[in-house]
């Protein structure tokens, strides 16, 4: 069966891990907290939204990543994990990409292969780029506009190259007329009408409908060029052909990956990438605690996955190596969502009752507290997205007056809902993340105080799409509350909220609009958004959408998530970027010593 309750075995495992954690804390040798020294750690949060130790960087050496999870795919078309997008810049280039700068500006788009940002004409429906001179593939051949087009066309081949984001396909060919390059009858397999390549240096995109985020979409690694004669199709992710400063030397999925310098890459052709280390390695661990211990021991420089240290490692690191930690906001919002198909969640007052009744501080604590868990979430737009007001927009006073739960207000809402004595419902939570289960249990406890009895149903986390992504299943199981989290694919309201809040995205399988929001105003705002060319106008619409969503009472945000990420003493030129959800910008990391 795919759903299950917490098993005794897991409890046993957790207990064992706790005992070992205690031993580790006492066994680990004391490290000094020498914030900011030349050879030591840069200091707590020193690389969060600012560059740490940029001047100490030396060219050369081996940058060592450790990871508990391999990428979904290293194929630029297929990867969807945030860390993969971040890492892919080592071996792939795009027309435009995120600025290699800390914090908010890291989320801005800047030219990469292109000589400048797009020339936008035809009312936002035509984007024209010119390619830079000197950009080459790993075999020395120049990167042409046709390579870019072919790379983008691969997104259409979802039957072979499933897994990656499909924004480009949805925007350039919303009716799905093109069959993808593998079924393309044209001799050059470049039959996609929406992209023109008048010469090797020029590429023109024709959008059927304007979309103000199109350039953001082109900055995704799924818009990377791919050389047709090097395309190994479904096997491409095992050995991608490099257009960046590094190329694959070896890759054993789940074991290790080594990148070495691409000698054909010229720094003069690349305004973004500094390419400091000579070699970049990833070693994959199956035991996350082991990885944390080795990071702390200095065997590895940073965690590829960038999802924070596990609880044991965190405890030790915070105590003894605080200077090696950064505490960035991840770009993820953790929240509960109320499917309107499940009674009584069809009634806004019952939804509001849950929001008011919940003890938001307890939930934050269950998620790891303000440092490891994150700030209390007050609305549904991540702080890194333009238009966000952060905690200052708090319509339910979640981080204010009602942060401990407002029983009186909740009872009022229950009365308005016609359920003065409360009601019963089920929380759906995935079973593979202990923190999610802890959140559900915390919520369950606080809702009991307002007479709302919830049962927790833990489902198989690998089956998320099939279980909560199926509205009919949600209704059948009576999931009145679903615990989830969401991060932006690109930092705009469209990149974050379109699939969550737009009525068009309610589908029978793989649904992400769990609340089943069908609000003409919200749909209309999204239409306005894609046509708005002006950045401040876009931000303004984003703010409006966020307000509409919150006013509908569809969501109860838990936290603006934070991570505690490890940075080794060897690292230089380290900074977190909003363009990668608060992860370090991998591509420009350097080492202080080349040994």
């Amino acid at each position: 069966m795919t759903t299950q309750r917490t098993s005794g075995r897991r409890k046993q495992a957790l207990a064992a891990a706790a005992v070992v954690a205690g031993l580790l804390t006492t066994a680990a040798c004391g490290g000094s907290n020498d914030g900011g020294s030349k050879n030591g750690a840069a200091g707590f949060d020193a690389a969060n939204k600012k560059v740490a130790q940029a001047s100490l960087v030396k060219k050369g050496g081996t940058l060592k990543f450790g990871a508990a999870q391999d990428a979904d795919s290293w194929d630029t078309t297929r990867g969807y994990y945030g860390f993969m997008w971040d890492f892919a810049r080592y071996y792939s280039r795009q027309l435009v990409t995120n600025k290699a700068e800390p914090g908010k500006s890291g989320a801005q788009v800047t030219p990469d292969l292109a000589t400048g940002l797009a020339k936008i004409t035809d009312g936002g429906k035509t984007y024209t780029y010119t390619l830079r001179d000197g950009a080459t593939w790993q075999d020395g051949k120049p990167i042409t506009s046709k390579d870019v087009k072919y790379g983008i066309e691969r997104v259409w081949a979802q039957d072979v190259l499933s897994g990656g984001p499909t924004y480009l396909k949805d925007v350039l060919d919303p009716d799905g007329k093109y069959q993808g390059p593998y079924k393309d009858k044209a001799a050059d397999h470049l039959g996609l009408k929406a992209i023109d390549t008048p010469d090797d240096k020029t590429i023109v995109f024709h959008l059927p409908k304007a979309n103000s985020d199109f350039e953001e979409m082109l900055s995704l690694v799924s818009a990377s060029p791919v050389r047709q004669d090097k395309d190994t199709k479904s096997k491409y992710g095992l050995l991608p052909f490099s257009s960046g400063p590094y190329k694959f030397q070896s890759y054993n999925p789940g074991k290790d990956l080594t990148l070495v310098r691409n000698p054909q890459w010229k720094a003069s052709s690349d305004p973004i990438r500094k390419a400091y280390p000579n070699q970049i390695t990833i070693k994959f661990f199956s035991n996350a605690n082991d990885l944390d211990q080795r990071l702390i021991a200095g065997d590895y420089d940073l965690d590829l996955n960038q999802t924070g240290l596990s609880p044991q490692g965190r405890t030790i690191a915070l105590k003894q190596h605080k200077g090696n930690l950064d505490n960035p906001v991840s770009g993820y919002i953790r929240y509960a969502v109320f499917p309107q198909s499940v009674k009584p969640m069809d009634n806004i007052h019952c939804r509001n009752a849950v929001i008011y009744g919940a003890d938001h501080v307890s939930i934050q604590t269950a998620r790891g507290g303000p440092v490891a868990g994150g700030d209390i979430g007050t609305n549904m737009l991540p702080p890194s997205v333009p238009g966000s007001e952060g905690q200052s927009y708090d319509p339910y006073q979640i981080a204010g007056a009602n942060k401990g739960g407002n029983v009186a207000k909740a009872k009022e809402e229950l009365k308005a809902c016609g359920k003065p004595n409360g009601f019963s419902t089920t929380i759906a939570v995935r079973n593979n993340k202990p923190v999610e289960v802890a959140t559900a249990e915390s919520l369950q406890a606080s809702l009991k105080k307002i007479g709302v009895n919830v049962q927790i149903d833990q489902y198989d986390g690998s089956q998320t799409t099939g279980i909560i992504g199926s509205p009919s299943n949600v209704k059948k199981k009576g999931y009145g509350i679903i615990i989830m989290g969401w991060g932006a694919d690109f930092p705009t309201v469209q990149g974050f909220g379109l699939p969550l809040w737009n009525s068009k995205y309610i589908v029978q399988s793989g649904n992400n609009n769990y609340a089943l929001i069908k609000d003409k105003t919200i749909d209309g705002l999204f239409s306005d958004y894609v046509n708005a060319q002006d950045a401040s106008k876009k931000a303004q619409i984003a703010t409006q959408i966020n307000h509409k969503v919150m006013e509908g009472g569809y969501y109860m945000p838990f936290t603006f998530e934070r991570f505690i990420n490890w940075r080794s003493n060897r690292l230089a030129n380290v900074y977190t970027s909003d363009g990668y959800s608060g992860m370090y910008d991998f591509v420009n990391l350097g080492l202080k010593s080349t040994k």
Partner: protein
Amino acid sequence: MLAYLIRRLFAAAVMLAVIILVVFSIFFLVPKWAGVDIATSFVGKQADPAAVNAVREKLGLSDPIYSQVWEFFKGIFAGRTYAAGGDVTRCAAPCFGYSFRSEQAVWPVLTDRFPVTLALALGAAVLWLVFGVAAGVLSALKRGSLWDRSAMVVALGGVSLPIYFTGLLSLAIFSYGLKWIDAQYVPIGDSFTGWLGGMILPWITLAFLYAAMYARITRATMLEILGEDYIRTARAKGLREQTVIGKHAMRSTMTPILTMLGMDLGALIGGAILTETTFSLPGLGQKVLDSIKTQDLPFILGVTLITSVAVLIANLVVDILYAVIDPRVRLA
């Protein structure tokens, strides 16, 4: 003997086919009953139905089970050709298919990881046999003594403590704490001492569990054997006590131990999942756990097949060894 062997091998082949069928059934039928669609988990966040269908098509999930099983077997002996969406790949025999996730060919990964698991299992087996059997024999000979009692308490601990506990503990003490051993796996080709360093804690952890079981079995068996008439006969012949124990009693004691050893080794060769995961050893167990988590059927099937073959071979070897040790079995 030859007819016997042929019969055994035939039975083993049938057994394997049944195992494959069962794995296929679990993989395809259980999600169906639970109302879950595997293909959706292979599509990105925006799972549009056309893409899901295409993935289902590509992975062959829409074919009836029997034809999938048939294709799978055909692939092993004759190779097979994968064609989906204009991507045509010839997979030469022995073809165990390609990972649903990483698109790696399964067979080379299995052959790459197998030696790690084999080294883990064999190394640990040597340790647990030496220490487990020795402790068991000593306990039997000194029954009721302080040694016996403490050995059996330790053995009880070894049997009941889970590997993830003893494994993490040994890492915490010897690798992170005292820093005696750098417990990271290094291929034997890169550095022998590095390899040894990476293997020693997994060996000890695994051996501790099994040594405990073997000590208990050895002790019980030895005590039973020591009460046998033929042991009294051996003494009546004037044999030295060490000959009586070491030769006459040991040979009989080894029979059940060998049976256990065969089964345990067979099962471990399919992957010591917990040990490999705890120590990040790139063996079959680590792979199969990962594959189960990500629903990577071709790998699950591949490892299952290796495990089954290993268990069946182990069974066969045990039977033959049994016949070597116990002449009475040879008649049957």
